[in-house]
């Protein structure tokens, strides 16, 4: 009675619907490309080729995807608790401080495999602490976490500018960045991994933090669906009243969840800082924190979906850069428009096609039933 539409089978819900959204997004993006006088088909070929056609293409795609997996997981964990953490950008930015401290301090002393775990801990800790303040304000004072985390993005950006222009910049240098880390502060690349599947990566910055991102995705899955803490987080996310009834402390769960979320964002900093540039530069997050929101939406807050969505957005970044390079009419900003369309259709308008799809499934289902009924009566005669 209260369900006016047929329920979709799982494969349609998790596979078909996102696919339709994606196709529509690319279709509209194609119209935009057409509008500026380029061929959408050429652009599509260019994008796919740019993203997956070479070892370096794949390397870059997965390098970007690594960032988005971390920030996507950050947003998803908070989603499961009913919190909208928009502060991934700032938490990742500040998390860079943790990486940098370890990289600068120990990069010349220890080998990378000892520096790496310490850097992981440091980045996660700093990211978590940056999320702690909005979490505390939300849990104790009811200040909305959306507002406070946005504010904290600005605070983080300002602090980092101050530090990079003044405190962390080597004496005499003009660039707002730290000095290059010692060998121990540089993560090994994953060229060997691409070699296995027949790609040859020369200059792409894909590094071992990609594997860390996959481990983090699995850990988040374990946390959310297999642990008591995850159970409490989901209870809170679905129904704060039920959580209260069940004796789950709202204060405790909000703070823990936000800190885990912040820690995941903080770990994103490992990839560009230790994995690619081997130093901290101004604005190294470059919007990955916000892309994480779209990734989490598109991946339905499930780690497997997030990994796939992150790779898609990695493709958009890498392939988009190739298009901008090869097609004179398409600037870097056009690529942002295309990314925006994907976010719009796959994220914000996620459910736009659901009713029509449900109606189609309902009709097909009824047709089948009637056919079956006809066979049954026909057999009786």
């Amino acid at each position, binding site marked *: 009675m209260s369900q006016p539409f047929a329920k979709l089978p799982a494969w349609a819900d998790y596979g078909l619907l996102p696919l339709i959204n994606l196709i529509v997004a690319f279709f509209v993006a194609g119209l935009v490309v057409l509008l500026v006088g380029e061929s959408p088909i050429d652009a599509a070929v260019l994008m796919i080729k740019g993203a997956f056609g070479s070892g370096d293409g794949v390397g870059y795609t997965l390098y970007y995807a690594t960032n988005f997996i971390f920030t996507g997981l950050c947003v998803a964990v908070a989603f499961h608790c009913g919190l909208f953490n928009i502060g991934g950008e700032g938490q990742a930015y500040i998390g860079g401080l943790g990486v940098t401290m370890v990289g600068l301090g120990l990069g010349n002393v220890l080998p990378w495999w000892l520096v790496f775990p310490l850097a992981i801990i440091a980045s996660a800790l700093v990211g978590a602490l940056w999320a702690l303040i909005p979490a505390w304000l939300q849990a104790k004072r009811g200040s909305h976490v959306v507002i406070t985390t946005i504010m904290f993005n600005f605070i983080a950006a300002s602090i980092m500018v101050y530090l990079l222009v003044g405190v962390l910049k080597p004496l005499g240098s003009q660039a707002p960045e730290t000095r290059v880390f010692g060998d121990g502060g540089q993560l090994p690349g994953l060229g060997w991994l691409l070699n296995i599947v027949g790609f040859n990566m020369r200059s792409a910055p894909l590094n071992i933090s990609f594997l860390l991102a996959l481990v983090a995705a699995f850990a988040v899955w374990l946390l959310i669906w297999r*642990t008591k803490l995850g159970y409490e987080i989901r*209870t809170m996310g679905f129904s704060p009243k039920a959580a209260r*009834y069940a*004796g789950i402390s709202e204060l405790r769960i909000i703070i823990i969840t936000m800190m885990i979320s912040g820690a995941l964002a903080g770990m994103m900093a490992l990839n560009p800082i230790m994995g690619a540039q081997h130093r901290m530069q101004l604005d190294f997050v470059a919007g990955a924190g916000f892309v994480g929101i779209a990734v989490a939406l598109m991946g339905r807050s499930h780690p497997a979906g997030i990994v796939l969505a992150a790779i898609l957005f990695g493709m958009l970044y890498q392939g988009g850069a190739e298009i901008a390079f090869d097609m004179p009419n398409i600037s870097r900003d056009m690529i942002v428009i295309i990314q925006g369309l994907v976010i719009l259709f796959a994220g914000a308008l996620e459910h736009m096609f659901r009713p029509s799809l449900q109606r189609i499934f*309902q009709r097909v289902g009824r047709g089948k039933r009637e056919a079956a009924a006809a066979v049954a009566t026909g057999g009786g005669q």
Partner: protein
Amino acid sequence: MAEPAIELTGIDKRFGAVHANRDIHLRVEKGTIHGIIGENGAGKSTLMSILYGFYQADSGEIRINGATVKIPDPNAAIALGIGMVHQHFMLVENFTVLENVMLGVEGAPLLKNGISKARAELKRLEREYQLDVDPDALIEELPVGLQQRVEILKALYRGAEILVLDEPTGVLTPPEADHLFRILEQLKDQGKTIVLITHKLREIMAVTDNVSVMRQGAVVATRKTAETTVEELAELMVGRRVLLRVQKGEAKPGEIKLSVENLTVRDGRGVVMVDDASFNVRGGEIVGIAGVAGNGQSQLIETIAGIRTAVSGRILLDGQVIDITGAADPGELRDRGLAHVPEDRHHMGLVLAFEEYENSILGYHDDPLYLNGPFLDLDAIKADARKKIEKYDIRPGDPRLKTANFSGGNQQKIVLAREMERDPGVLIIGQPTRGVDVGAIEFIHKRIIEMRDAGKAVLLVSVELDEIRSLSDRILVMFAGRIVGERDTDASEGELGLLMAGVEQREAAE
């Protein structure tokens, strides 16, 4: 004989796999009160939604006053003279009665003329049907009984000749319900046709001329009310014989298990919700709290269960004081043997998005039985859920099914199984059978009596006075946050009704 006011032939409606209405034939004679009775999910509301244009039937025909009609939307229904009074009022709370009545039929962009016309028309309707309401009163300041009257006025103002009322007495006190029935009689005498949807057999017997019983989407019988009995209707509704009277022996009250002393509770805005309440519940007895919804019962039981904090007073559980001022923790109370079946099953007692087995541990998820270090022991939890499913006959018996897909009765059984199987000393139950079908009601009542007979202290809150009267060993009545009286179970319904309405208020109104 005159054409029937409504004639439905072969109405059929599916929602995906759910066959909500099957080949329905229904004839409602002009100038009668026609009852439609059935369990939750029997398809009553769907049928009326089709009549009112919310849904379209897949097949079948609707005839109003003999003419075949199509009703694509509620406006078409209104144009045909069909008016609907919804279970949940569709009123703008901060508008006046007059503004609500004319909402949508203002007549012109400027309100001035419309208002004076509406005022005159409202006066006439009030005179004709004795539906007195102050046209300038704000809706939020009116008691629910009067709000419902505004809904009826709204329908009449739009020229309704056929009035459909969906579960109209759910929110009313017994005196208010009686008053409503008098209004319905009057409307009938003026030639209006009334369709009354309800699941309360007593109301059907009291006011209707004819009654149709629905079960599983089909009309299984239509009877003249005078020629049927409550027992027959109940059997038709459920499809088997039902024990309407609760069978129970004498209570054997033991030690005081739960004691509430001078409890005062305020809500978030500082309004006093529970006012100096004191009572005891002994082991082996059921204490029922009667009252119209919203008189502080919810706040009272939520405070005892540790979900809310109190301003002052004391609560003792097994003689031990519960901290009620701030550190109250439902988890700790559970450990001390207090189980709570909350009134709000959908948001508090269950997480509807969870699979059944996940809900079977809600609140008890700290129990090492279900855990493996920090991990959930899914095998143990599911095995435990299966045991409860079997014992409480929860259907469908699939612990992996999403809780939202269970019927109301089975959802309630999930909560009851979880709370009762823990063998608590004190059991607090809010609205045990709200939204629950007749078959499950019988089962739930039996389990509650069993808990009592096992020596547990049971505190029962329900807005169904019948339920309170048939289950309780002692009855407390709450009005405006205060416990205004204690009665034995042989107290008459009228007497309890007066208490529930707060007698002084009633005298002032009439």
